[in-house]
């Protein structure tokens, strides 16, 4: 069971699942979503022991973490990290993740990290001078660099702070990636990983949205849209849930064998009170998208991505296309009002597909069998977060840049 659940990541060359199995991780958070999103994603990845100190955790995300991974244990102490006496809680932790927004905890944890030679991974989102964004930095003893000034919250004590479920999703993914790197003895970024854009005004949430693909990308796009209070979403996917999906498709823990699109739609409707619906179907040239304002491309093959690009171009629809591998991903936005290039054109998908098999790209997907590729949760939640953020920027009148993410680079994107 466990082997099957983690199958897609165990396939990654050099992967050391045991290092994740045996690790105990400390998490310091606030009352917001960030710590909870990290806990859920860490559980999906197969990290089994987490100790958290936060005033509260999101019950839905904690429940998901527990149901996804039967070995998962969470020791949660309600409160704030305001005194070194609380250190005892983190005894035996291989590293501590600091997702809080008060300077006292940030400083105490950096001091603890220095004194006890424990890595501290710091991640947070912020709003400042009309900008919103996030920062992530991995502190190891010896990295007493100027970057540390940028990761200390301006408010000394717990206070009201900016929070955003979409940015939190991305931060949780990047922080989890750094966690995995440290546990497996791989390099962590020596840069301050940062992202910023102009503050978003209140969006018009009445857009009609089509999400094609209800796998890992589709789930995190769905969560991001729900966190952003979009209501009218249609999920489209022909597939059923398999146990090997569960290392990244976090909302499907109790629905093996059921439709992905229907399960995702029902879960989000129940959890967020939205009005999403589902279509159990492939996206092909006959799919009708006239009703929708935007299409999110969360599929897993270039052939369908080409059809999506061409259909959206023909009908003048916004297309946000995301793709991932275990260590990279991209988000390309097509805005018909800009007369830009489609994702298929920009990324050279026609050449790729032609080279693969010159005569096959227009054949029906039913004529194919599938070979599972390695896949992990982190790049999916990062790419999905950027997909939703790109759309929010677009409807806010900003111009989102295409995002190319690479977990092996220090700057990441």
């Amino acid at each position, binding site marked *: 069971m466990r082997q099957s659940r983690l199958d*897609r990541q165990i396939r990654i060359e050099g992967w050391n699942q045991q290092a994740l199995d045996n690790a105990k991780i400390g998490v310091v958070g606030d009352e917001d979503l960030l710590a909870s999103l990290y806990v859920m994603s860490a559980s999906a990845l197969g990290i089994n022991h987490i100790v958290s100190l936060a005033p509260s955790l999101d019950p839905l995300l904690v429940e998901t973490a527990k149901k996804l991974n039967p070995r998962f244990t969470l020791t949660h102490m309600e409160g704030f990290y305001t005194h070194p006496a609380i250190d005892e809680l983190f005894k035996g932790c291989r590293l501590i993740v600091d997702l809080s927004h008060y300077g006292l905890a940030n400083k105490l944890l950096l001091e603890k990290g220095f004194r006890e030679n424990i890595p501290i991974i710091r991640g947070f989102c912020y709003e400042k001078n009309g900008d919103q964004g996030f920062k992530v930095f991995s502190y190891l003893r010896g990295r007493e660099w100027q970057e540390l000034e940028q990761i200390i919250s301006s408010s000394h004590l717990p206070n009201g702070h900016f929070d955003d479920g979409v940015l939190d999703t991305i931060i949780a993914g990047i922080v989890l990636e750094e966690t995995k790197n440290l546990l497996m003895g791989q390099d962590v970024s020596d840069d301050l990983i940062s992202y910023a854009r*102009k503050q978003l005004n209140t969006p018009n949430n009445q857009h009609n949205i089509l999400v094609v*693909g209800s*796998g*890992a*990308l589709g789930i995190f796009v769905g969560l991001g849209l729900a966190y952003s209070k979009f209501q009218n979403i249609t999920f489209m996917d022909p597939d059923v849930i398999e146990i090997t999906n569960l290392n*990244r498709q976090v909302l499907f823990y109790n629905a093996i064998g059921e439709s992905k699109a229907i399960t995702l739609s029902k879960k989000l409707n129940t959890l967020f009170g939205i009005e999403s619906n589902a279509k159990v179907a492939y996206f092909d040239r006959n799919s009708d998208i006239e009703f929708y304002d935007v299409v999110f491309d969360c*599929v*897993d*093959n*270039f*052939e369908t991505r080409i059809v999506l690009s061409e259909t959206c171009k023909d009908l003048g629809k916004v297309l946000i296309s995301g*793709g*991932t*591998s275990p260590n*990279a*991903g*991209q988000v*390309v936005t097509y805005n018909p009002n800009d007369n830009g*290039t489609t994702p298929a*054109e*920009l*990324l*050279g*998908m026609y*050449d*790729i597909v032609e*080279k*693969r*098999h010159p005569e*096959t790209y227009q*054949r029906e997907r039913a*004529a*194919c*069998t*599938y*070979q*599972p*590729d390695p*896949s992990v949760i982190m*790049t999916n939640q990062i790419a999905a977060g950027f997909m939703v953020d790109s759309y929010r920027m677009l409807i806010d009148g900003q*111009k989102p*840049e*295409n*995002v*190319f993410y*690479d977990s*092996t*680079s*220090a*700057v*990441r*994107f």
Partner: protein
Amino acid sequence: MSDTDLKKELQMDEAEKLLPLVLEILPGHAAEGLIDIYEPGSYTAKSLRKLCDKTLNKKNLSIEEQLIVEDIKRQLDGGKLLSRGQEIEGTALEYAVSEQTEAGEKYLYVPIRAIRPQEGGIGLILFDYGDEQ
């Protein structure tokens, strides 16, 4: 960089067009790429794509440069050259930003990245349409 910032940087005066052009082709998100310097007058009439081809076909590369070129070619096997996430069309000047060395010498800089797109979680194995079927 915001759209406005980019436009500002792209609004170069005529004098700046007389600056040398530093073209850097980076494999994926690597911090260092293959660098080529074009003297004023040698790049204005050529398309950026042609300059990239010329840079990638440079001879007498150092061992470090050869490794970078190998990385770039790996990325280009199913990937594309992009500048700031966009297709490279037109001349280098359309993508250049003005920079200067620590010694104060001005130059134009164009970063190009060789990016391989990511497909998704499942690889297709197409049926063998050979004789046996």
